[in-house]
């Protein structure tokens, strides 16, 4: 291992611009991949937020008893498709209305609690269940009507909201994945070209080693090690740059998105996500280095 490491180090020192080219491309790849991974995570969080926030409101009839409300609340609580059921009284409904119309006090002065219906607000564990839950709740005797609050702008129905969110997330994942794959392929090709050039310049050395009885593994060792060094430096630099940028801008991002937990608010959570990304990138990088160097070696040997 020592002699391989020394050989790999010597090769890097002997042609620093080739090494820099490889490291720059890999750094860029893993920087963009890290940012994309964070974006995909955040889009997932947004989708989850909209899927799980209270979106459905069952407006109750006026002439119902507290017992009937309790029965329906219990029924909804026991339904595993539904979570976070909350009873909103007429008075609370008025407060919400007042808050919503605070810029025009005249509007709130003209109303009394009696005109607002009491309601049960709840969310669904998965938006795909929303429509069937709404249909079922509508059939309840004490329910006057059912509405939903989720809206990104212009959607007329809950399925449209779900569909729009799903599409945004899917496009982000597909686009991000494609972009990352293109960058990874470019890195792979750059690695293959640079290692191929290394092999060509080392032809005499390889020939000598072969003649004195070196195994193919011994000959390939420094070449694979060199590729692994490029990838390690590229992954860590790219990841670190993205991590520092996200870490620096997290307070602003969180403040901008308000209650939507686009990134973990606690440091440990954020570190865990970046830890997972780093592990996946190191593994991917290792595969790139191994695949690239083996392909380059076999191509040069074939020629």
């Amino acid at each position, binding site marked *: 291992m*020592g*002699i391989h490491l020394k050989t790999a180090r*010597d090769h890097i020192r*002997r042609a620093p611009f080739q090494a820099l080219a490889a490291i720059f491309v890999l750094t860029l790849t893993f920087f963009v991949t890290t940012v994309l991974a964070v974006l995909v995570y955040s889009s997932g969080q947004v989708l989850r937020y909209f899927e799980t926030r209270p979106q459905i409101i069952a407006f109750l009839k006026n002439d119902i008893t507290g017992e009937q409300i309790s029965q329906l609340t219990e029924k909804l609580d026991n339904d595993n498709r539904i979570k976070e059921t909350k009873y909103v009284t007429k008075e609370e409904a008025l407060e919400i209305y007042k808050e919503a119309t605070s810029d025009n006090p005249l509007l709130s002065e003209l109303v009394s609690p009696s005109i607002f219906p009491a309601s049960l607000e709840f969310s669904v564990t998965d938006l795909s269940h929303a429509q069937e839950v709404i249909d079922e709740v509508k059939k309840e005797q004490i329910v006057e009507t059912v509405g939903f609050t989720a809206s990104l702008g212009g959607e007329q129905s809950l399925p449209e909201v779900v569909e729009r969110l799903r599409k945004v997330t899917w496009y982000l994942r597909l686009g991000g994945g494609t972009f990352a794959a293109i960058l990874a392929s470019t890195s792979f090709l750059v690695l293959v070209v640079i290692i191929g050039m290394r092999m060509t310049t080392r032809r*005499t*050395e390889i*020939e*000598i*080693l072969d*003649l*004195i*009885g*070196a*195994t193919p593994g*011994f000959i390939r060792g420094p070449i694979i090690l060199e590729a692994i060094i490029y990838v390690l430096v590229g992954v860590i630099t790219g990841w670190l740059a993205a991590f520092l940028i996200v870490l620096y801008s997290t307070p602003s991002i969180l403040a901008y998105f308000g209650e939507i937990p686009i990134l973990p608010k606690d440091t440990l959570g954020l570190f865990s996500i970046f830890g997972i990304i780093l592990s996946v990138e190191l593994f991917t990088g290792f595969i790139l280095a191994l695949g690239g160097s083996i392909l380059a070696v076999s191509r040069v040997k074939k020629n």
Partner: protein
Amino acid sequence: MLELKNITKRFGSIEALKDVSFLINDGDFVFITGQSGAGKTTLLRLLLREILPDEGEILIDDLNIAKLPRKEVPKMRRNIGVVFQDFKVLPERTVRENVEVALAVIDLAKKEWKSRVEHVLKLVGLEERMDLFPSQLSGGELQRVSMARALVVNPKIILADEPTGNLDWDTADKIMDLFEKINHEGKIIIMATHNKLIIDKMKKRIIELKDGSVVKDSGSKTKHRSEKSEEEA
């Protein structure tokens, strides 16, 4: 012991070696001579299993290396030291490192490297130059590095392809003394050369090739095609 039995090697329509047979015993020193294109280098490449014969057997201690699986070749080559005309030393490595590479190849424990390297560099007279780079050495010294690298793994056979081809007479003479010394340690030395002065001075067994055939073997007990045809005539 090394034996070639009816070796034929063709490159396309050209027959580089034709029905070549000879036997070399342990401790023999053999010159392979002949004009350029006679087949000397082809013969050495076959012995190193760089190329395979089209016909015949190459036996090293009764092991037919022509039939050896590819993955066994590195192990076989570790028993053969090679010295080249153009030295083939690694230019970015010091003398010591050039020799150490051979030890790394045979996977020898690192603690044994120092004593082995120092011993062999002393043998070839380079103990004072072990930390110099090839660019700082003369042709004769580079050839000694090449010899040291071949010797350090303690091979049974040393193959030398025109080892004095790039050297002046005095340096060549010293290199030959060194080969003689190594030969006295019981190693087989097979040297391809067309340097008549050296051959005449050393008085060793000579196998002469002409157009791919053995035309003379000063120490052979087997008869060759050319000798047979002479007898028949």
